[in-house]
C-alpha cells in the first residue's frame, strides 16, 4: 500500500487533470458511483454526519491500530467527495490520521467551489474522520 503522502499527492494530481469544474464534478460522480456498496443496516443515526444538507453515513471499523472506513450518501457529488476522503484515509493507522493536517483538501479547491452548506458538510466529514482516529 502507498503511503498517506503518496495517496494525497495522487488525488491532488488526478483532480488537477480537470480544468473545468463540470469535469471535476464528473470525476467526483464517477468516484461516488464506484464506491463500495454500503450495507443498509449500517445507515443508522449515529453514523450520520451532522452539518450536511444531503445525508452522509460514515462507518469506521478498527483492526488493531488501523482504521477502515465505509461511507454512503444520498447525493452523488457528496458521495464522490467522501469517497475521495476515505480513499486516502481508510487503511491508515490512527496515529497517522491524527497527525495529519488535512490541508491537501484546500489544494483541491473543493472548499471554495462548494456552497457554504456543502463546505460545512466537508468540514463535518473531516471532523468525523479525525474524531474516529482520536478515539
Amino acid at each position, binding site marked *: 500500500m502507498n503511503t498517506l503522502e503518496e495517496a494525497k499527492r495522487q488525488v491532488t494530481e488526478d483532480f488537477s487533470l480537470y480544468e473545468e*469544474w*463540470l469535469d471535476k464534478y464528473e470525476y467526483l*460522480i464517477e468516484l461516488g458511483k464506484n464506491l463500495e456498496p454500503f450495507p443498509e443496516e449500517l445507515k443508522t443515526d449515529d453514523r450520520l454526519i451532522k452539518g450536511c*444538507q*444531503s445525508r452522509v453515513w460514515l462507518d469506521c471499523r478498527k483492526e488493531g491500530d488501523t482504521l477502515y472506513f465505509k461511507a454512503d450518501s444520498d*447525493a*452523488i*457529488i457528496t458521495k464522490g467527495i467522501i469517497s475521495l476522503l476515505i480513499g486516502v484515509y481508510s487503511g491508515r493507522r490512527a496515529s497517522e490520521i491524527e497527525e495529519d493536517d488535512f490541508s491537501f483538501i484546500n489544494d483541491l479547491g473543493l472548499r471554495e467551489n462548494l*456552497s457554504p452548506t456543502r463546505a460545512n458538510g466537508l468540514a463535518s466529514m473531516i471532523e468525523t474522520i479525525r474524531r474516529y482516529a482520536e478515539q
Partner: protein
Amino acid sequence: MASEHFRKQFPQLGEKVYGKTLVYLDNAATSQRPLQVLDKWEEMSSRFNANIHRAVHRLADSATQEYESARDAVAGFLNASRDEIVFTSGTTMSANMAAFIFGERFVSEGDEIIVTEAEHHSNIVPWHMMCQRRKAVLKVLPVDESGHLDVAALDDLISDRTRIVCVAQISNVLGLRNPVREISDICHRRGCRIFVDGAQGAVHEKTDVRELDCDFYAFSGHKIYAPTGTGVLYCKKELLEQLPPYMGGGEMIESVKWSEITYTRIPHRFEAGTQNFNGVPALKPALEIAREMREDSSTTEEQRRITKYVYSSLMRDPEIRLFGVPRHLEEKVPLFSFCVRGAHHEDIALIMDKMGVALRSGQMCAEPLMDRFGVTGMLRASFAPYNTLAEAEYFVESLHKAIKMIKG
C-alpha cells in the same frame, strides 16, 4: 424586445459566473434591483441622510418627504389608503407583527387559527407562537396532490372559534394562484379575518386589496426589486385602529408620563424606533418598474410563453415530478418546483450552478409541504418578468445535461 429594455436596467443580470452568462432563476428568494432603485438608495444615503419624522432641519424634512412619499406609492400599488400601510423589514416581520397584534386583541384560550399546508415557515411559525402564547389551537387546511388548496373543506374547518385564516396568495413552492377572493368571502361570511402572504403574489398577481377584500396583506420589498430590509404590512383601517402596538419606542407614542403612556395614531403606532429611511424611499421606483413590466404587453406575453414552455418541458419528462400542477395554464406563474427521480436535488443545483444557472434547492422554508409530498427537498426555478424565453430554454437544456451527468 421588451425584456431587453427592462433587463438593461438590472446590472446584476449582465454579470458572469464561472465565465458563463448568469441565468438567474432564484427570483422567488430575492429579485435583482434596477438602477432606479440603486440610485434612489444612493441618493438617500449621500444627499438626504437624516432621521425621519423628528427634526425640523432641511435634510430631515427631505428624508421624511421621501419616506412618506413611498407610503403613498405602496398605497397606490395596493389600492389602499396611506394610513393602512405599515413599513416593516419584510414579509416575515409583517407576519410576526400581524400575529402578535391581532392575537393580543382578538385571540383567547380555545380560539382557533387556520393556516394552509402550503405556507412558507414565515406564515406558520408566527401564528404557532401566538397560539402558544394565547393558548389557542392551530389548524391546517390541506392541499391536494396537484397542489391546490382544498377550499371546499374550509367551510367545515372554520368554527365559531376561528379568528383568522392565513394563506399565501401564491405559494413559494407551488406557484399556483390561490383563489384569495373566494377564501376572503368564506372567512367574512363565517365571521373571521384573513391574512394574505403576498411575498410571491405581489410580483406575479394583482395586488388590489379592495378587490381581494383581505384584512391583512404582507409583502417584501427585496422580492419586488426594492432593497432588502423593506417590507409592508397592509391592514384594513377599521381593524388596524383597534390593534395594540407591536414594539415600543420612539415615534410610536403620543405621550409618555410615569403615570400613563399613550400611543400615536395609525400607521405610526406600529413603526417604533428608527426606520429604514434609506431603503424605504427606493420602494417607489421599485413598484414603478414592477407596474411598468406588468402593464407591458410583450413582457407579459413572454412570461406566458416561458410558463407554457417550462411547464410542458417538465411535464413531458417522465423522470421529473412537478409540484403545483395547474388545472389550466392561467393558474400557474413561472415558478416551478420539482424533483428528478434518482437524482438528488443538491447535485442538480450544484452542477447547474457551474453552468451559470442559479436555482434553489432544499426545503424552501416549507417543511410541512415537503412532508406532504414525501420528499426531503426539491429544486426550484423561479422566473421574474426580466427573464427571457431564451433563458428558459437554456435552463431546460442544462437540466437535461445535469441529469445525464448524474444518471449516466
